[in-house]
């Protein structure tokens, strides 16, 4: 009996694996021929990254050498592309006129790298990262001393390419459109850690960077120009922006093609004699670019080709990054979704971030950074849809802990720990030392345990364990102590500790804070994010980039949201002074934009109420044109400096209170503070500017300036307390700036000055501003910070900054369809 003829188009991993699956089941059924476009035997494309990095050689990654083809009686037509399929005659036509007949045909044509259609994309030195030729070109480029590479694409492949090039001695920068690396596999927290780890390995990243043009010199790539105007010089440019199923042959042959060659669960195309497998297929609307699904497809295909029943039902994906020393794992719904809950664990000391996503009491996904040892275990739990309710408490600690404690309740589990089990990793304190101290020293509270044993005194992540030990040792005598109030539910750290650590550890970004302080949510909440944003801004002026998505809407759009979703606009009137020109401009704006309400505020300025969001930039442009800037009436920052007319006009005025008010406002405007700050300067003790119910108030007297702090006239009514008295206007300015800076550095977010004062004490503030050196240092820090703060946010937005904030995404649905 003659054998059936099986032809495979594609000598890659999928094609050869499919053949192996057939041979395994029925070695004698087919006469097999394989066409391959590359002039080589079959190799493991996944391992190209280690070859590039010099960690493996080509020989190491060959899957099937020539002997395999020979021994299995397979004819390999290497370097011959198939040009057409005649489905009627069941014949394939290859390069050079070769024609072969088939009974069954497998398309395993793989995928092509996407080449961005940038100007200059055809220059020499612009490559993709797909096959061994690309790798050879990259290795050759790296051989030039001092050579630089830019990789477009911060996905798995792009990162591996950049890492490989750095290992080859090049300087490499990854340019990524999104602001999270590998955003399809990682959440922002893990992406941040990855960027930091890569930086340590010498791979730079440019996130949120849009490529505009590839710049050339003498026909060769010389750099990549970004949309922000910068050009990154390079001698090699790698495009690693993704792959596209190669379905050209299938399409030309009249098979059903979507994004890829459409197949059913038996891997058959719309022609039952033709199957397809691997990266070229589209199965249930899904295309795959990873190896595990290909193996699963090949199994189903092997079964179908040998007359057995099998169905491929789609794959659940997991990813590991192949960069030595950077442990990254991701699977499933790593970012959660409807009805999902997160369990987050961070170990700042070891640089570990783990997030396991649960859905209906089962693992639905996971992302692990820094310690991915349990990736396979989570993936297993996920694929087998194991009910994890009973191991939930320990799930995040991984398989060995969980298996070790299975069946025990958490308190019993702690009781069951051996005496030499380490509880506090930071200070190396084991269980016996803690329980021993509780008994011998008669410790009753968490604070006492911290003081005596140091356990839970550093990062605090073992606090729950220590509390359980107290409970287990003391029984009912232990009542959980309330430590400092946490910033929010995302952390057990209070404001004080958070601020201290930001400075002490040099934490300069929000993900850095959340990792170091072991936040228990992936990206914080509406309470902690604005607080952290402020703390970072205050700690690192000029360095930290304000995160507008962590700003309350008023500070994000520089106007006050009203109950109907419109906004109010309050231009600054320095010290409460205005002019005919300003008033005329305001009147014109009111007419032009039909602003419904104009109101005089308590802070001596004018409020325009009911402005539509879309109109804000145009309103500001007109106010700017008349010389007015934002009044920050919306800010946790300096609001107004209210004044009376003072010695200029008033027959009782002792000093130039208006002048001092204007001077203070012109120096201090734009500063961000923990909560709003209102100032006033009264020209005499009659106090017409009501300075003694402001956050900081000045009352001028014949002999100088009384400086008062801690007033409030809102939810609470409180008069100020006299802080100090100074002789000159200069000193008054220094002192007020110093108080403000002390408050900026020590206040908790949303804590007004009077509350800060109640917490730290008037004497502490007094000591800081009365010591000339401390006052000077505080003033200098304030002045430095102001260099980056005195910028009119309205003018910036009029000039086009963040236009997306003010324009609708699309107006295409604005009117009903005809």
């Amino acid at each position, binding site marked *: 009996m003659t054998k059936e003829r099986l032809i495979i188009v594609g000598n890659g991993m999928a094609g050869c694996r499919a053949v192996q699956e057939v041979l395994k089941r029925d070695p004698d059924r087919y006469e097999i021929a394989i066409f391959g476009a590359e002039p080589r035997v079959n190799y493991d494309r996944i391992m190209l990254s280690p070859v590039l990095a010099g960690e493996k050689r080509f020989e190491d990654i060959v899957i099937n050498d020539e002997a395999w083809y020979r021994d299995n009686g397979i004819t390999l037509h290497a370097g011959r592309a198939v040009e057409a399929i005649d489905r009627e005659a069941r014949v394939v036509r290859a390069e050079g006129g070769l024609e072969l007949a088939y009974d069954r045909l497998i398309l395993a044509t793989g995928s092509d790298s996407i080449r961005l259609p940038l100007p200059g994309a055809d220059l020499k030195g612009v490559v993709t990262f797909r096959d061994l030729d690309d790798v050879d070109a990259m290795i050759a480029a790296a051989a030039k001393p001092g050579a630089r590479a830019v990789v477009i694409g911060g996905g798995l492949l792009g990162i591996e390419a950049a890492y490989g090039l750095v290992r080859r001695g090049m300087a490499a920068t990854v340019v990524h459109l999104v602001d999270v690396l590998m955003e399809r596999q990682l959440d922002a927290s893990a992406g941040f850690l990855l960027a930091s780890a890569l930086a340590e390995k010498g791979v730079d990243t440019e996130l949120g960077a849009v490529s505009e043009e590839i710049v050339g010199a003498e026909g060769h790539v010389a750099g990549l120009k970004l949309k922000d105007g910068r050009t990154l010089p390079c001698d090699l440019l790698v495009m690693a922006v993704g792959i596209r199923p190669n379905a050209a042959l299938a399409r030309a042959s009249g098979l059903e093609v979507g994004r890829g060659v459409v197949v059913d669960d038996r891997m058959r195309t719309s022609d039952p004699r033709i199957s397809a497998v691997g990266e070229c297929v589209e199965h249930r609307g899904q295309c795959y670019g990873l190896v595990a699904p290909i193996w699963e497809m090949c199994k189903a295909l092997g079964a179908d080709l040998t007359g057995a029943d099998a169905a491929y039902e789609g794959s659940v994906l997991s990813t590991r990054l192949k960069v030595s020393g950077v442990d990254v794992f991701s699977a499933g719904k790593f970012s959660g979704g409807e009805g999902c809950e997160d369990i987050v664990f961070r170990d700042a000391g070891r640089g570990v971030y783990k997030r396991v996503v649960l859905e209906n009491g089962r693992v639905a996904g996971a992302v692990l950074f820094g310690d991915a040892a349990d990736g396979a275990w989570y993936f297993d739990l996920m694929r087998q849809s194991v009910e994890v309710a009973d191991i939930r408490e320990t799930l995040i600690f991984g398989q060995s802990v969980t298996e070790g404690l299975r069946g025990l309740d958490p308190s019993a589990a702690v009781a069951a720990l051996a005496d030499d089990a380490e509880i506090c990793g930071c200070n190396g304190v084991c269980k016996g030392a803690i329980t021993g101290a509780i008994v011998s020293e008669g410790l009753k509270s968490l604070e006492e345990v911290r003081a005596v044993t140091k356990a839970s005194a550093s990062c605090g992540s073992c606090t729950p364990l220590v509390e359980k030990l107290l409970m287990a040792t003391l029984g009912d005598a232990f009542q959980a102590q309330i430590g400092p109030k946490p910033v929010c539910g995302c952390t057990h750290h209070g404001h004080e500790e958070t601020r201290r650590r930001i400075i002490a550890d040099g934490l300069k970004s929000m993900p850095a804070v959340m990792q170091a302080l072991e936040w228990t*949510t992936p*990206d914080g909440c509406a309470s902690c994010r604005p607080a952290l944003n402020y703390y970072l801004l205050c700690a690192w002026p000029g360095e930290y980039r304000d995160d507008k998505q962590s700003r309350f809407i008023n500070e994000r759009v520089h106007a006050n949201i009203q*109950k109907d979703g419109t906004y109010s606009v309050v231009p600054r009137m320095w010290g409460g002074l205005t002019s005919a020109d300003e008033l005329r401009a305001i009147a014109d704006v009111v007419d032009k934009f039909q602003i419904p309400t104009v109101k005089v505020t308590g802070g001596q300025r004018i409020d325009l109420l009911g402005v539509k969001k879309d109109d804000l930039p145009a309103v500001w442009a007109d106010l700017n044109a008349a010389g007015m800037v934002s009044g920050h009436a919306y800010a946790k920052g300096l609001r107004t400096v209210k004044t009376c007319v003072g010695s200029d006009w008033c027959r009782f005025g002792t000093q130039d209170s208006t002048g001092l008010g204007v001077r203070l406002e012109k120096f201090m405007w734009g500063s961000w503070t923990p909560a709003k700050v209102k100032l006033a300067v009264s020209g005499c003790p009659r106090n017409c500017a009501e300075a003694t119910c402001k956050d900081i108030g000045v009352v001028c007297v014949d002999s100088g300036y009384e400086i008062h702090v801690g007033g409030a006239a809102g939810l609470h009514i409180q008069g100020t307390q006299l802080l100090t008295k100074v002789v000159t206007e200069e000193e008054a300015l220094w002192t007020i700036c110093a108080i403000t800076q002390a408050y900026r550095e020590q206040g908790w977010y949303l804590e007004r000055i009077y509350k800060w004062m109640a917490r730290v004490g008037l004497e502490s503030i007094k000591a800081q501003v009365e010591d000339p050196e401390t006052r000077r240092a505080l003033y200098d820090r304030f002045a430095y910070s102001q260099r980056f703060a005195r910028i009119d946010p309205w003018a910036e937005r009029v000039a086009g900054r963040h236009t997306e904030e003010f324009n*609708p995404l699309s*107006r295409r*649905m604005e009117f009903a369809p005809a």
Partner: protein
Amino acid sequence: MNALVKDPIAWTDVGAVTDIPLRGARRVPTPSGDVAIFRTGDGRVFALKDACPHKGGPLSQGIIHGHAVTCPLHAWAIDLANGEPMGADRGKGCTPVIPLEVRDGRLLLGRA
């Protein structure tokens, strides 16, 4: 009389996913009021009617954290996946979810 078989949802391309900043939102005006499209920190997108179930506050102007948005008017937290208030306000009404699909990086907003 009308024998046409229709896609029950009419889709409109309203822009690219990357037109919305991470942890940000944009609004799309429609004849029946604004729709808010959110993009969370992990890159997922959601669409809700741009009105809080509490007092109709524009959710597109809130702070986005996890898969939730906090309304700018009175700080209700709304679950982006189903439009329901979370925490203490659970069960007090619901914001309608608007059909949204992503195809090739484009946002397709549905008119149900």
